[in-house]
């Protein structure tokens, strides 16, 4: 009978009072359009090799000039040399090109391409008989590929990819290393070249070189290239490729060199920056405790990608978040929230905001592990970007937390802190704060302590600020502010709702009036 079902549904509602899974967790920093300069903390997409050999003479003046004529003359000479049949001349030309391309400032990438040199350079990659030539050509191409997408494209279109992959196996370590580097640059260009490299079998070729005796410098390059193979979305690298690389990346995450660690960790951060299935693959490797351990490192270059990875993981499902919590992330976060670098504070607050979006058991763990005090500190004293994340944490917490948990947060000073932030010059943040305030009021309603909360809000100047927002240019903000005022701070509002709710007492008046 229909009525029976209806009642049953209510019965079940009773046991699970109005608790619906919050869907705030998927909030990510995933805006595509950016106004800012690219993030400085991220690992670099492409790198140029500008090192010089210790035994080499300092670059002659001709290599350090910006004079177009001199450069053009030099390039003419290079073209001439490279196009001879003399290996010696070819080597010299190639080396000259490499030096030009390795200058600190304004390397003539475009000029080299336009001089038609790439065809020859790629050809030279196959000259197993002349390792010196191979090396110089590989270096030059590496540096061209380090330019813009257009430059990388020129290198790829001249057929360099198969040649470089073949060179990975070169017995000459320096040549193999240069190939690793060049391929890293190509992989870093974007998902399509990355996938092209994978299709060409780069992964097994790379992993074959990952041996215990490989020198650190080589490993650094290799790790970086691996990380670029994990990088970029739309589309993500395919699962099979990830599965192939993961064991080695995990292995590298235990390496002693900080630079290797950093890039291996960046790889993990790319792999976890995706849908929950992607995160699952990483969690299943059992790497979480190690990531948490790395959160405690001194080096910012390690902490940053480790924190990013953790942040990504806790933005996943409740189970995934719980796995991170079980690995001890909550004991590592407080010190990161107090880190001297504001970028670290911000990322830590972001992670907290995602944990706070979970079920109340996880929120309880935030309390138990002492994250509320540093969170409130960030609300008070963090820089703007950190405050913004911390505000999200409060809103998520208050929408999913139990009444007791919300009360606890207010007692820690979060309410006063977010009320102060109502003056920030960021519309979204203001709206998110208004949401949090509304959540806190809902909790107060359940406790019958709305009046007390009203006074608290007013005391710390919050009422003035909310009233002021009723003049906000943004309609959503103004309506949210107005709704709060009408519901909780206007005697008329209280009287009216009372009137409608009650039959017995048409003229019962709120205690606060008149």
């Amino acid at each position, binding site marked *: 009978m229909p*009525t029976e079902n209806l009642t049953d549904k209510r*019965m079940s509602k009773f046991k699970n009072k109005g608790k619906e899974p919050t869907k705030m967790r998927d909030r990510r920093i995933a805006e595509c359009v950016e106004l800012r300069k690219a993030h400085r903390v991220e690992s670099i997409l492409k790198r140029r090799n500008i090192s010089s050999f210790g035994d080499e003479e300092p670059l002659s003046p001709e290599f350090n000039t910006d004079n177009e004529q001199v450069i053009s003359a030099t390039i003419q000479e290079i073209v001439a040399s490279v196009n001879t049949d003399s290996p010696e001349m070819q080597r010299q030309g190639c080396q000259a090109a490499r030096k030009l391309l390795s200058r600190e400032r304004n390397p003539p990438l475009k000029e080299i391409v336009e001089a038609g040199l790439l065809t020859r350079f790629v050809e030279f990659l196959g000259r197993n008989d002349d390792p010196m030539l191979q090396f110089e050509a590989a270096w030059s191409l590496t540096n061209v590929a380090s330019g813009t997408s257009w430059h990388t494209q020129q290198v790829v279109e001249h057929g360099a990819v198969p040649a470089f992959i073949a060179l990975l196996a070169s017995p000459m370590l320096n040549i193999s290393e240069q190939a690793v580097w060049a391929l890293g640059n190509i992989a870093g260009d974007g998902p399509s070249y990355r996938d092209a490299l994978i299709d060409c079998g780069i992964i097994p070729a790379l992993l074959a070189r990952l041996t215990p005796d490989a020198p650190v410098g080589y490993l650094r390059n290799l790790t970086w290239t691996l990380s670029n193979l994990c990088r970029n979305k739309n589309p993500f690298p395919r699962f099979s490729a990830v599965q192939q690389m993961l064991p080695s990346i995990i292995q590298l995450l235990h390496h002693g060199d900080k630079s290797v660690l950093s890039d291996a960790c960046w790889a993990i951060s790319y792999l976890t920056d995706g849908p929950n299935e992607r995160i699952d693959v990483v969690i299943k490797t059992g790497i979480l405790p190690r990531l948490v351990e790395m959160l405690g490192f001194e080096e910012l270059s390690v902490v940053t990608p480790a924190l990013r990875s953790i942040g990504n993981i806790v933005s996943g499902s409740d189970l995934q978040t719980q796995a991170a919590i079980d690995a001890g992330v909550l004991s590592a976060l407080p010190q990161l929230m107090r880190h001297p670098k*504001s970028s670290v504070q911000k990322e830590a607050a972001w992670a907290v905001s995602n944990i706070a979006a979970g079920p109340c058991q996880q929120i309880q763990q935030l309390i138990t592990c002492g994250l509320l005090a540093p969170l409130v500190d960030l609300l008070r004293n963090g820089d703007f970007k950190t405050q913004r994340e911390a505000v999200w944490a409060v809103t998520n917490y208050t929408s999913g937390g139990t009444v007791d948990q919300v009360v606890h947060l207010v007692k820690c000073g979060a309410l006063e802190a977010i009320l102060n932030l109502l003056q920030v010059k960021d519309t979204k943040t203001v709206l998110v704060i208004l949401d949090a305030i509304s959540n806190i009021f809902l909790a107060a309603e359940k406790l019958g302590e709305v009046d007390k909360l009203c006074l608290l809000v007013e005391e710390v100047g919050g009422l003035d600020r909310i009233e002021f927002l009723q003049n906000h*240019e943004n309609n959503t903000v103004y309506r949210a502010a107005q709704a709060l005022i009408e519901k909780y701070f206007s005697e*008329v509002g209280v009287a009216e709702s009372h009137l409608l709710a009650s039959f017995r007492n048409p003229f019962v008046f709120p205690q606060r*009036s008149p």
Partner: protein
Amino acid sequence: MELNDANLQTLTEYLQKTLSPDPAVRRPAEKFLESVEGNQNYPILLLTVLEKSQEDVIRVCSAVTFKNYIKRNWRIVEDEPNKISDPDRTAIKANIVNLMLTSPEQIQKQLSDAISIIGREDFPQKWPDLLTEMVNRFQSGDFHIINGILRTAHSLFKRYRHEFKSNELWSEIKLVLDTFAQPLTELFKATIDLCQTHATDINALKVLFSSLTLISKLFYSLNFQDLPEFFEDNMETWMTNFHNLLTLDNKLLQTDDEEEAGLLELLKSQICDNAALYAQKYDEEFQPYLPRFVTAIWNLLVTTGQEVKYDLLVSNAIQFLASVCERPHYKHLFEDQNVLTSICEKVIVPNMEFRSADEEAFEDNSEEYIIRDLEGSDIDTRRRAACDLVRGLCKFFEGPVTGIFSGYVSSMLAEYAKNPGVNWKHKDAAIYLVTSLASKAQTQKHGITQANELVNLSEFFVNHILVDLKSPNVNEFPVLKADAIKYVMTFRSQLPKEQLLEAVPLLVSHLQAESIVQHTYAAHALERLFTMRGANNSTLITPTEMAPFTEQLLNHLFKALAIPGSSENEYIMKAIMRSFSLLQDAIVPYIPTLIGQLTHKLLLVSKNPSKPHFNHYLFESLCLSIRVTCKANPDTVSSFEEALFPVFTEILQNDVQEFVPYVFQVMSLLLEIHSNSIPSSYMALFPHLLQPILWERTGNIPPLVRLLQAYLEKGAATIASTAADKIPGLLGVFQKLIASKANDHQGFYLLNSIVEHMPPDSITQYRKQIFILLFQRLQSSKTTKFVKSFLVFINLYSVKYGAIALQEIFDSIQPKMFGMVVEKIVIPEVQKVSGPVEKKICAVGITKILTECPAMMDTEYTKLWAPLLQALIGLFELPEDDSIPDDEHFIDIEDTPGYQTAFSQLAFAGKKEHDPIGDAVNNPKILLAQSLHKLSTACPGRVPSMLSTSLPAEALQYLQGYLQAATVQLV
């Protein structure tokens, strides 16, 4: 419409007519224009007239008409026809920028508005060349044109300051930055250079500075969402120049006007905003520049005068310092004792001084002064900004700042002591300083709730405040007296009770002061003190403690209403109300005199009600007089009726709309005091209350319903015996009310009172019609609110007349209807009923249906028996279902235009809670158990079998609990 001379001529003529003051000419012309605006070429014709007409009025008129046309028609709404043809759109966009720039200012403004309306829809996708067109004009060198462009750009870009981040928005901003940022920067530099070239040419400077102000505004908009790469790279250029402009002074640009901000002030004010934006959001990048700005802004504050025209600049500048000084990593900029001293001395103290403008307001515009000073509408004032800065500095430097200010306070007080007559303003500033320093948290209800522990408030009270309160001449130094009174009021929660008690008689004496601000503050302070709570939730100040001053208090309060300017002073009236409420029995001896004064006042204000708050408190005071007096002696009610009815009659006869709802409430209060009989004076009025015209006004409805309920409670029998012919009228009111979604609950209040109190026989003939009306409403518009009231009503009916009567009346309307109601309404909706009394009525009513209605046991209704029982158990055990269907959310708001009754509700006319079932049933769960038991003994075996086959286990478990509690068993 072709673009020809004839059409241009016609259009010109109609435009001319729209300017006519005669509506008979103007309206048809406006109608005509609207009727042709759908034609192609219409906007082009308008623009042609605008461009070609010889007459300026026609050109302006055409510009305004054009703008309004764009406003109405440009947006393309989905599923609606495009109201402007594509060729017209293209032509408008191709010409309008040029046209705007070559037009005089009055027209330029209209066209600029039109461009931003179009831009809002079309920019950037459908108007790709707008920006380049604008940017190209920067090179014109003609600042009339450049300012036109800048103004248009400002109206296009200012939305970046408040819209939410989105990919779409940011793509647009990115596009704007790519095209606009570089030229804007070049223009900025060039304009600054030109300012130097033309440093002595006032006219040129004026134009250039307005350009600079607009450029600074654009900077703010473009930098608001995030720090753009371009501006990060060019921060040096912008910030260096902003900094220079902040420090710049040009004698030529100084204005003589004291009130209106000049160009220089507007520009610097905007630069302060820009710096504040960067300091708040782009801290990391802005850090190298920040100290310079702090110094510059601080110097600016030190050198800026007290004139009103600088207020915005000064308050923006102080707010900048206030926001910076509380950030931990800028702490060091303020740490130095000399810096702190200098900020206190040169920035804070001067801006807290009582200015001549304040003095004028105190004397001549007391109402506004009070609102600003007391109710905190001072958000942009210098004093407010200075207070915020004090609070900001106290975050890290509470000790030093308190120390510095204490020194100032002492020296200012010393100055005052030397020559109070001349130096009284020093004391005012000292009190203000102490107040702002001590306030850490404040509410209207309690005053300061948290104070700076370093300030000794009691000591200051004794040494400096009490003197002024005790001053024998209440009319001397009214500002200081007002300050002293305000001090007591502000710190009431912080001062010990003895000091408050010491202040009370002094405040009473200040009620006599001539200064409106002063006696208003005294009244307000007393009112606030009387609301303070002490132990056991009673008032802090007791009637006993007030006994020695009661007479004087009442006396002075009423006398204060006679002081010129305060005859309708809401603060005084509120203090009267609060005094009555506090003193209770103690006022009884004075009421015979005071009621006369109150009625007299009522008579006066009813001629022209203009102060709603005053009037409200006046009625509240009347209610209190009645309640307090009649509680001691109910017989005195007649003397109130004697005193009040003449005035009430006049109010009702003259139909004083504002007061009628109050009168009904006071009458209800009076009538309810009578014990179970209704005086003839009320009965005489009864027919008038049923006049439809009274019910037309929404504000009358709640108090009138309540009054009729009082009539029914006290005089149902009298109505049935002597006014039976009025019963249809009474039901007519019910019928009118339930027809309205906004008022249907009021109709049910009335109906429930009728069912509860009227002798059953007197309404027998109307019952069926009542149910039919309710059904019609259910069919035509069923809302949650209506259903809730309906459920309460039918269950009350079941309680009152029996479940069989309920079933029979439904089934008499239409066979099987009772079953339908139970199945479709009672079972699914009863969970929505809210309120303990309502729920109790439903519980008892349903219990009767289950156990006293044979049809439920032996007909096709039987299948509903178990579900109904289950619904009842749900009503007992489950949380209330407060869900409302989406489409119902806004009904109440929309259907009640001008619903202002909430305001006119009198707290002290409040009605006692009424439970129509009362003690007859204390615990409905037990009643259910007992009734089921009774039923089961009447037909053994049936009840347990129905329960076991149809009731879910969980519900059954609850039911077992009730049976156990009632110690009964089902058989």
